[in-house]
């Protein structure tokens, strides 16, 4: 490989977008060419710097309130006055308000605080532990038909195992873990370069509503379904993790427990 080719491929290499052959060729060039190597390191530093969370501009609360069912389903928080197209805006506002009023109140994605925080804390430490050392997975497989039987005899329940590769969340393996004194099944999924841990164990009490919590840069979503408690945690963005939860809950997916 020549430096000219490397100049452009460098970026694709940094972004993990090269196929195996190009990736190997790039790695070889970087090990031989100090100029390209220095350039690569500069961009790697810049990429790291851009991952600084304060640069990511989350939606302000007022905007979110406009598009989220409020607990009482009656108040629409007005945005600050708009500076252009007031007529269009007024019509649009009426439309949005009507839509918001028609949404049933039982659907709430609002983060809940103060309940089950022990579970959240334990899920976070379980997740962090799984990323350190060698203990991410006891069974490494992208095949649900391999992962599910692996749990047999190791737990007193049969976990639900689904591959969600079609939804952009490939299954990569599983392991045993513990949450709140229960033995739990931990399934490991990937979203791009991020790891997602899904914990599950039998629900003894009734079902609890789905709840989302943000803590230390992690998002934790809990829900109950078909007699199981589920806790999913990752550092992917909240929307992606919600999509994961929806995909896992979706009955249309092939299900091993049938």
């Amino acid at each position, binding site marked *: 490989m020549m430096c000219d080719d490397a*100049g*452009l491929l*460098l*970026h*694709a290499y940094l*972004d993990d*977008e090269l196929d195996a052959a190009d990736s190997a060729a790039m790695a070889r060039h970087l090990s031989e060419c100090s100029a390209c190597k*220095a*350039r690569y*390191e*500069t*961009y790697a*530093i*810049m*990429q*790291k*710097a*851009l*991952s*600084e969370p*304060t*640069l*990511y*501009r*989350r*939606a*302000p609360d007022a*905007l*979110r309130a*406009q*598009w*989220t*069912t409020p607990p009482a389903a009656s108040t629409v928080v007005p*945005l*600050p006055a*708009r*500076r*252009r197209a007031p007529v269009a805006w007024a019509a*649009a506002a009426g*439309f*949005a308000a009507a*839509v*918001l009023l*028609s*949404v*049933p109140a039982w*659907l709430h*994605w609002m983060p809940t605080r103060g309940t089950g925080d022990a579970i959240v804390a334990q899920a976070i430490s379980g997740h962090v532990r799984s990323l350190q050392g060698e203990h991410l997975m006891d069974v490494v497989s992208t095949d649900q038909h391999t992962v599910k039987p692996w749990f047999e005899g190791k737990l007193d329940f049969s976990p639900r195992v689904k591959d969600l590769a079609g939804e*952009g969340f490939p299954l990569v393996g599983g392991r045993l873990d513990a949450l709140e004194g229960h033995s739990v099944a931990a399934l490991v999924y990937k979203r*791009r370069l991020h790891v997602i841990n899904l914990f599950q164990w039998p629900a003894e009490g009734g079902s609890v509503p789905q709840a989302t919590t943000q803590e230390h840069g992690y998002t934790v979503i809990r829900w109950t379904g078909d007699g199981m408690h589920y806790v999913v945690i990752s550092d992917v*963005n*909240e*929307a*992606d993790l*919600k*999509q994961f939860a*929806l995909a896992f809950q979706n009955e249309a997916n092939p299900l091993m427990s049938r």
Partner: protein
Amino acid sequence: MPTEPNASPRGTDAARSVRFEAQVVPYLDAAHNLAHWLARNPADAQDVVQEAMLRALRYFDSFHGGDVRVWLLAIVRNTFYTLRSRAPHDALHDELDDVKHPLVDDGPSPETLTLLAVDVGALQAALEKLPPPLREVLVLRELEECSYKEIAAITEQKIGTVMSRLARARERLRDELTCRPKEVRRHDVR
């Protein structure tokens, strides 16, 4: 998610709103982040997001499967450019000039950058100075963590174009970060 094929119009609306809230609203942060970096000020960003969400709601029935985030971000981007072209003195004059900016990559020493890059304020200023076509690919890649394929879909470009713009964007950003105070940079158009 409950869907009732033969429900009353009112029931259909409610089911649709539930689906919209469950599938699209979780990407409000992504929509806002892109809008913010395109518009570069909070009020305009909110305008863009609000308008984009209303459009998304209007088009939602014609959205069949696929990646919701990609779909929504494409709407945000189009909304931004539409609103901006309507504002007269905000015209699109920071066009991307591939010919006048040949790809010359004689980078400064990494040490210089290490010092500067940790300064989030400088990073933000440098990012805001990039012309929109470069800024958007960088924001989608580094902040939103989109794949090249996703960026290509959002910006309606070929993957090759995404790659070369990303390369150019990073070079410009690096230059902004390393030789900031000197020389008036010709791409400092607002």
